[in-house]
């Protein structure tokens, strides 16, 4: 019966184990994700969870959640956060600090940059198999598009389009660039 199956259902899993990180960058941080494949009962709830750690000044690549809202609770540190929808202006542009929560609506793009103390969060997402679409890095939507689409969309040269696609080879978590390198880029 349903009751009996619930008795034996796994209800608990640890999300904070660094050695089980799904995304890890020694210079930027880590992300652990728990979806319904790891904790099947989440399928019934249609929820999942994401634990993130960003080191000092590291950036979580601009991204959007394809199929879920994301409710972020800050467990430690602070970050500059921008959330952008289909408006001219960001719907949020500010510093997110420990013990605050923020809601990132489905499909709205978000970018986070950790402050000096780093940034740690737990995010609950309203889909048991929430999907993220980054805009930067090896798995990004930008890299998935032909160079010429980018050239025409942004009115940039082929060289700029190539840089846009390939300058960052990381996945989701971006290490801070050394000051000297930033000056060179600028």
């Amino acid at each position, binding site marked *: 019966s349903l009751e009996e199956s619930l008795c034996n259902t796994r209800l608990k899993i640890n999300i904070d184990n660094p050695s089980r990180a799904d995304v890890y960058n020694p210079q930027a941080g880590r992300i652990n994700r728990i979806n319904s494949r790891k904790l099947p009962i989440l399928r019934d709830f249609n929820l999942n969870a994401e634990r993130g750690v960003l080191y000092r000044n590291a950036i979580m690549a601009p991204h*959007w959640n394809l199929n879920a809202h994301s409710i972020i609770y800050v467990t430690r540190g602070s970050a500059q956060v921008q959330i952008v*929808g289909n408006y001219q202006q960001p719907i949020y542009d500010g510093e997110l600090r420990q013990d605050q929560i923020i809601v990132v609506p489905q499909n709205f793009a978000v970018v986070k940059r950790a402050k000096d103390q780093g940034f740690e969060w737990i995010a609950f997402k309203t889909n048991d198999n929430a999907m993220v679409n980054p805009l930067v890095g090896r798995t990004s939507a930008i890299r998935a598009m032909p160079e010429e*689409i980018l050239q025409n969309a942004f009115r940039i040269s082929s060289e700029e389009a190539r840089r846009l696609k390939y300058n960052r080879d990381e996945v989701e978590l971006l290490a801070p660039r050394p000051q000297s390198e930033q000056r060179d880029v600028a």
Partner: protein
Amino acid sequence: PSQRQSRCQVQNIDALEPTQKVQSEAGETEHWDQSNEQLECAGVSVTRYTIQPRGLLLPHYNNAPQITYVTQGRGMHGAAIPGCPETYQSSQQSEQQQQQVPYEQGQGQEERSTQGDQHQKVREIRQGDILAVPVGVANWFYNDGETPLVLVTLLDTSNNENQLDDNRRTFYLGGNPQGQQQQRGSLPFRRTHGSQQESSDAGNIFNGMDEQILTEAFGVRQETARKLRGEDDNRGNIVRVENRLGVIRPPKTEQPRQQQPEEEDQPGRPN
């Protein structure tokens, strides 16, 4: 659902024409009135895109599953699906061989031949095709024909995949589309259903992001980051491609293979 049911007490049905037209550099976008009770009852939003030859409907994604019918013309469709590999790739050698693929004239060409591009699959489309695009998947259309490419797109905004309100929302990854008037207000969740006409296109998603963060995140020059934001771009959501778009794609017809030597087909040949 209860709100939608109340809108479904339709007494009579009318044939509907588009109520809003947005002109772009290389085409036009026509929207049917989202607040029409028939469309509200069905929980859908309908748009027609007319893309002129060499027009590109900029990369965008929507807040609902999308189904599109190609009513006229032919072209290309690309979708950037997260997790899928970039399986269309050109090496230096193949690039030189692909003489049939036009590319921009001049300075880019020399550099192009030294390094190939790679991207996700690109699909050819033509009149009669149906295209399905999941919620939140970035996609673009290009007209490589001689006649306008006309697409009728339905967004199933009442689909469970859309967790926002029932308004159509299109998020552009480039350009600076200026569509319907935006009314900023409360967050666009389900409970605000129908409370405001808030939808469509305004700027692109980079437009709201800090230039310095974009510079650092992409590792590009500040000028490139500025272009990402598209602030001074007045082309709309359908832009003209100066020279024909030369993305990597297989030829339309299989080229005849070179005749293999007969002994290759014989069994027992050492490898």
